[in-house]
C-alpha cells in the first residue's frame, strides 16, 4: 500500500491531544487555515510532508493533495463536520483504528518515525490554534 497524504494526516491527527476530557478531538475545518498551516509545516518537515505540493494562489498556497486527503478522510467517515456551522472537524475512534490498522505501518515502511509525526502534530496544534 503506498504512503499518501492521507496517512500523514491520520498520523498527525492521531497524535493531537484532546482539548477537553470526554470530548472528541477537534481541529479547525477552515480551509484557509489548514492550507496555510500545512504549507508552513512543509518548510519545517520537508521529508515528512514531501507528498504535499503547493500551488501559489491569489490568497494562500493551496495543495490539491491536502484537499483530496481531507475529502477522502471525510468521505470514509474518519473525520466529520457536524451541525450547520461546520467550523471544526471532529474525529475519534475510526481515526484511531485506521492509524493502528493501516497508517502506522505504512508510515513506518516509508521510513517515517513516530516521534517525527508526534512533533508535527504538536506543531500543527500550535499553528492551527494561532490562526483559529
Amino acid at each position: 500500500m503506498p504512503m499518501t497524504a492521507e496517512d500523514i494526516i491520520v498520523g498527525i491527527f492521531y497524535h493531537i491531544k484532546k482539548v477537553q476530557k470526554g470530548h472528541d478531538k477537534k481541529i479547525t475545518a477552515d480551509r484557509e487555515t489548514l492550507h496555510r498551516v500545512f504549507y508552513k509545516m512543509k518548510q519545517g518537515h520537508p521529508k515528512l510532508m514531501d507528498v504535499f505540493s503547493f500551488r501559489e494562489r491569489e490568497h494562500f498556497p493551496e495543495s490539491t493533495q491536502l484537499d483530496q486527503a481531507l475529502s477522502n478522510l471525510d468521505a470514509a467517515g474518519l473525520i466529520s463536520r457536524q451541525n450547520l456551522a461546520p467550523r471544526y472537524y471532529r474525529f475519534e475512534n475510526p481515526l484511531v483504528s485506521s492509524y493502528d490498522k493501516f497508517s502506522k505501518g505504512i508510515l513506518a515502511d516509508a521510513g517515517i518515525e513516530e516521534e517525527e509525526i508526534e512533533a508535527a502534530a504538536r506543531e500543527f496544534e500550535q499553528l492551527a490554534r494561532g490562526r483559529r
Partner: protein
Amino acid sequence: MTATDVSILENFSKDIAGFAQEFAGNTEYRRPFPKDPKIIHDPLWGTIKLEPWEVALLDLPLLQRLRQVHQTSLVSYVFPGCNHNRFEHTLGVVQQAQRLIDAVNSQYPSNKPFKPTTIRSLRLAALFHDCGHSCFSHISEDLYESCADMTAFFKSDVFPKCHPHEALSALILRSEPVKELIEEIEAHYKIDLDNEMASNWIIGKPAQSSGKKKHFETQVINGPFDADKLDYIFRDAHYSGLPVGLDLDRLWSSCKVGKTTDGDKVLTLHQASVTPLEQILFSKINLFAIVYQHPKVRAAEKMFQAIIEEAKEKPDSIHFTISGRKLDLNRATDYLWLTDEVFFAKALMRPQNDSLHRSLHDIRYRRFLVRALTISHDTVAPGCNDGFMQVRKLNQRGASTYQAKRELASAILRAAHLEDTIGVRDVWVYLPSDPSFGEADRTFVRTANKSLRKVSDLFPIHYWGEQFKNYKWRGHVFCPQKYQQQIHEAALQVFKEQYELKFKRSAGETSHVLNPKSTARS
C-alpha cells in the same frame, strides 16, 4: 539534482524546442503574414474577431493540430454531441478573455487597468494556453505526468506547481522557435507582445510591480472565473446536451480590480454578483457527475490507457508514428506529437487479426469494458471506514497510486483465476478525484464596508463538495463483459482480504451484475 536528471532535463528542453520548430518554426509550412483581421463564427459565442497577427499564429500547425484533440477525451462515445475540440475551445477562450477584460476596463473611465500590450499578451496566452495538450486531452495528461522527463522537470522547480499540460504550453511559448516567430510578428505588425509574461499567466504566475502581485491579469487566464473555465463549462455543457444557465453579464457587470490587505491586485466582484459564480461551480459539479465521470466514459478511458501502457512497455512492437517519427511514450515530450487522429490511425496500419488493431477498434466501435463492482458511500458496508479510506486514497494523482491500482487489478485477476484467459490490461480499478472548490477561496467580494472577503466566507460552497462525495462519487472495477460475474466475486474477495472492505449487494446491482453478491455480513 542527479546527473541523470540534468541529462533528462537537457533532452526535455531540446525535445520541446524540436517540437516547436516543426510545428511553429518550420518556414515550409508558413503562409505569408495576413493583412486583414478574420471573423470566425462560433456556435456558442457568435462572432469572434481575430487581429491579423493572431491569424498568423492561428494558421500555425501548432494551433491547427488542436482540431485533432477532442476537448472532452472520449466523452463523445456516450454524449454523441461532444465532438468539440481544443481548437474551438481556444478560440472561445480568446473571446471570453476579451469580454472579461472589456467588462473590467469599462468600469474605469480613465486609467484602465488593462493596457493595450497587456491585452494583446493576454490574448496571446489564450491562444497558446492549451497548445501543450496531447491526444484526448486530460486522459493522456495522467500518463505523461509520470514520465521521467516530466517528473524531473517539476523537481527542478523551474516552474511553480501547475498542471503538466500548462507547463508544456508555457514551455512551447517560451521556446526559441516560437520566440523568434513572435519577434517577426512584432516587427511586421509594429506591435508589442510579452510572451514571457503570457507563458507565466498560463502557469498561473502573476507579474509583480513594486513587490506587489498583479493577480488580476493572471486571473483572466488562470483564476477562479477565468476565460478558460467559462468557455469549457459552457462548451462542454452545450455539446453534451446539458445546457447550463449562467448569467455572465451579471458576473462581469461588477467586476473590478481591488487590493488585498497585502497590497496585491486582484479581480473582485460585488457581493450582489456572487450568484453567477455559484452557478458556475454548481455547473462544474454537474459536469463531473453526469459527463466527465460517466462510467462508460471512464471504461473507454481505461481501454485507452491499456493501449498506451502497452506502447510504453513494448516500444519496439507497439509504437505510434507521425511523419516517420517513432514516438517513445516514455517521454512526455513525445506525447506532443500524438493526436486523436494519430492514435486511431494506427488501427488502419495493422492487420485485422492483430491485438492492437482490435483494441483500438474496441474503443472506436464502442465495445467497452463493463462494471463489475461499484465502490461508493452507498455500496460499502457500514463499519468499514478504515478500508474505505485506504482504497479511496488511491484517487490521489501520482505514480505510486497508479501502480497500487494496477497491482489491485492484478490481484483481482488472479483471484478470479483468469490470468491465462485475459490480460491484466483488461481489468481496471477506477477511483476518481473529487472536484475542487478552491475557487470560492480565491474569489474576492467587495462588501458594503468596502472590505474584501472570500466567497467561501459568505456561502459555504464546500458543502456541495461534501454532498457530491456522499451521493455522486463512484469508483468502479472494470472488466470484459464475458467475465463480469467472476471479476465481481474476485473483487469482493480481494477488497475484503487486502483492506477489510466489505460491500453490500448494491455494489453489484448498480453495476448490472447478473448475480450480485455481498460480503457485508461475512
